[in-house]
């Protein structure tokens, strides 16, 4: 089991799930309000399952998810960005889903059956996120504002994948390979999000049960 890669996957899904949930109640149309809320719930569910796998049956997945400092998260900078603008939000959803499909497909062949099994289960749910992303991509691909958002986020998207999987992303997205904004570095936008995300847990009295 490649624990760092799995932690990166779980942190990506947790942080992106949080970011997607920021549209709950304020999306430009009711269908998207429902879609983003549902996608966010799925992504956080995937994060939970991967954290649980990492800590084992007796471990505390919540502690792994929420008791680290912001700089200790292993998420890619793409998911950290606070994007309350529709073209960028959809550009990120699409780029992330293309990259995530490549990563999950590779994990389905993992030599550890627990990892491969979980990846296959995640993949069944992600199929619906991909349909949603593709639908929007088809709708907006000819719009200069959307294209500009895709190009702006492209170096971040490359950073979601390890170098050996980037070739496929380049082929599928159709942009030239550029210098990636790598995992392990963080944007300034993670710390405020982390503060909000962990606030309830940090302010709970010792011994609180959830």
């Amino acid at each position: 089991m490649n624990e760092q890669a799995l932690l990166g996957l779980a942190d990506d899904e947790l942080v992106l799930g949080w970011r997607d949930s920021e549209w709950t109640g304020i999306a430009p149309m009711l269908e998207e309000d429902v879609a983003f809320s549902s996608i966010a719930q799925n992504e956080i569910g995937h994060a939970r399952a991967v954290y649980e796998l990492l800590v084992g049956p007796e471990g505390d997945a919540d502690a792994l998810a929420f008791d680290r400092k912001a700089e200790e998260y292993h998420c890619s900078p793409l998911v950290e960005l606070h994007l309350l603008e529709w073209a960028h939000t959809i550009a990120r959803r699409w780029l992330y889903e293309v990259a995530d499909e490549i990563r999950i497909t590779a994990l389905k062949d993992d030599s550890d059956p627990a990892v491969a099994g979980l990846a296959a289960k995640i993949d069944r749910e992600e199929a619906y996120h991909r349909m949603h992303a593709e639908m929007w991509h088809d709708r907006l691909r000819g719009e200069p504002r959307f294209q500009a958002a895709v190009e702006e986020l492209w170096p971040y998207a490359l950073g979601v994948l390890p170098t050996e999987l980037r070739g496929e992303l380049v082929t599928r997205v159709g942009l030239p390979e550029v210098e990636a904004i790598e995992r392990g570095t963080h944007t300034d936008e993670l710390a405020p999000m982390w503060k909000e995300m962990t606030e309830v847990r940090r302010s709970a009295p010792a011994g609180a049960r959830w």
Partner: protein
Amino acid sequence: MVAEARVWEALQEIPDPEIPVVSLVDLGVIRSVDVQNGHVHIEFTPTFLGCPALEVMKRAMEEKVRELGAEPKVSVINDDSWGTDKITAAGREKLRAAGFAPPAPRPLAAGASSLVQLKSQVHKCPYCGSMKTKLENIFGPTPCRSLRYCESCHQPFEQFKTI
């Protein structure tokens, strides 16, 4: 000593917390029941990983087993063993009767699901039986449901997603 068949009967009484017309057994989420010396080990697979009803279902199973005078252990198995094809025929009929279109069969090529495929799936309106229904939103009120609309009786309805 509690018999395995008695445990299955008891589990059949536990409603899904979000779609209470079907039981956990109807949904096919209970993978195995193993009874040994008064201990009951249940292996259970969630429908969707982000399902918020997971803990409620787990507790309900534990309570049922205790009512039978046995000691429960419920293991959540997060692997690929559950899909909507595991919903029983009785479960599908109960869904339909309650106004949910049951899931379409899963395509043979795994991972081949696409929006084109989803849109081309034929779903009968659970209210009037018309085949003239269309997909309104891939996503619905819970992770496992999509929204559809019947163009004959103008009734919106929910469809169980195929996974």
